[in-house]
């Protein structure tokens, strides 16, 4: 079973999700082909363990453009006939993958977090109904399947690889949607609903005096401090920072929770966060049900160590 992975890059750097796709590809067995679509493909280091072949697709555009990646992927699929194509369920991936699937009549599924072989084909798992249920999906036989994989669901492939390198020529693509420039987003006032990174503390921190150390840690990490309701009840924090059913609903890129047990009302306010990391001394804490990463550890020890690292 051959698997085609398309690398993602931004401003000259390969994005981590690329290596996660390689891990996923390896788990399916069969040769893994990694395509790099760039103005200077050779400058991007993708030769990791697990990649059997690297295909350079030279294009004129420096940054991602949807029509370019669509044309390139279609050429790759036509030429290499992979059984499976893996992209990241990322903003870039969302920009062109479904177009390719529609054009070529491929099997298709997005936000997939588990995939395995199933006879001659594959089976993928994704969530449905607001993540309340999981579903296994299968695909039409006899044609390639294009999957968008959920970032962080696979570990990144590590270590140097021994891939061969080849080229695929592509006629220049005139994009209908053209990249003009990048802009950094200014951060305005503290609003936990717009923060990308929340460091959230709960009853587990114990005393009011301990709030300060987490405030400091948040500052060092570049995170915004948020809290669960007991701390607002106790008057330690304003409810502007409260995450939960009766506070604010947040969906940051990273939600790092210390000493939050995961009461239903709190989970309702944060469980759709992209990455949830929970540190709690109680292995039964409900927050571990929604967390992507969990550590059963002493919050203060971990917080102290984190502070040393930044």
């Amino acid at each position: 079973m051959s698997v085609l992975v398309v690398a993602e890059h931004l401003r000259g750097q390969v994005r981590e999700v690329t290596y996660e796709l390689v891990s996923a590809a390896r788990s399916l067995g069969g040769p893994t082909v990694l395509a790099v679509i760039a103005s200077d493909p050779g400058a991007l280091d993708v030769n990791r363990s697990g990649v059997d072949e690297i295909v350079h697709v030279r294009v004129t555009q420096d940054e991602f453009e949807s029509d370019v990646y669509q044309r390139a992927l279609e050429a790759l699929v036509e030429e290499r006939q992979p059984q499976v194509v893996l992209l990241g369920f990322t903003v870039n991936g969302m920009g062109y993958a479904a177009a390719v699937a529609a054009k070529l009549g491929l099997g298709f599924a997005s936000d997939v977090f588990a995939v395995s072989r199933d006879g001659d084909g594959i089976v993928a798992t994704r969530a449905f109904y607001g993540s309340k249920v999981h579903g296994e999906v299968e695909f039409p036989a006899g044609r390639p399947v294009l999957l968008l994989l959920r970032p962080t669901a696979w570990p990144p492939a590590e270590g140097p690889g021994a891939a061969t390198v080849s080229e695929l020529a592509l006629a220049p693509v005139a994009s209908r949607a053209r990249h003009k420039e990048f802009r950094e987003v200014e951060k305005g006032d503290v609003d936990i609903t717009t923060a990308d990174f929340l460091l959230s503390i709960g009853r587990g921190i114990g005393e009011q005096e301990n709030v300060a150390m987490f405030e400091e840690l948040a500052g060092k990490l570049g995170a915004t401090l948020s809290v669960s309701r007991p701390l607002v009840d106790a008057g330690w924090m304003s409810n502007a920072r409260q995450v939960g059913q009766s506070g604010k609903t947040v969906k940051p890129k990273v939600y790092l929770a210390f000493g939050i047990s995961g009461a239903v009302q709190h989970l309702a306010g944060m469980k759709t966060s992209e990455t949830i990391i929970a540190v709690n001394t109680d292995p039964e804490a409900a927050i571990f049900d929604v967390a992507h990463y969990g550590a059963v550890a002493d919050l203060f020890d971990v917080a102290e160590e984190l502070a040393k690292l930044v």
Partner: protein
Amino acid sequence: MTTDGRDVDPDYLDRALNEWDACATEEAIRIRERLGDGEVVVVTVGDAQAEGALRRCLAMGADRAVRVDAEPLDPVSTARALAAAVAGESPDLVLAGVQSADSVQGSTGVALAELLGIARVAVVTRLEWSGAGPATVHRELEGGLVDVVEVDTPALLTIQTGINAPRYANLRAIKQAEQREIAVLTADPGEPAYRVRRMFPPPRGAGADLLDGSPAEVAQRILEIVRERLA
């Protein structure tokens, strides 16, 4: 669950307009208001119960609503069901939500754009368009970086929440929307791009990847994850 274990029993489902579609509808209405001209048509694929969401859009101020009576299965077949209805409107702009709240496919819009043969940009957080010619949009990348894109029209844009605050409809508008006619079309979605084999409640605690080791090791790992996710 249904008896074949392949879906959730519909009796247990609540139907509502999801927040991405609300933002998309709001953005469309704002464009009409800014240009002082234009028609906002809302289209969906679904059964009669899907009309509630359409009426909500009408109450917000959309001009017309169309329902394609078909079952929305996967993004590609859903896009096929939509294609004829949308093409029939000859739109200058097609706005869709980035994703739906229930199945989070994040793909139907872009598939539709392909079938319509028009340009597209996904995950749009800002939209500027004079009413003719290319539009300038902001595409929001992971980590908050903005990609400024110029896109030829007609175009399909998938709209991200946060682009605007969707307006509320007062009771008068809601009542008026109840009375509006919704055109119903049929379409053939064609072959689905995937088929659900089974659905099941997620295993408890299966989610969390346990970070082991000393506090120092845990802290190290946490920092790596944070940096990667924000990059």
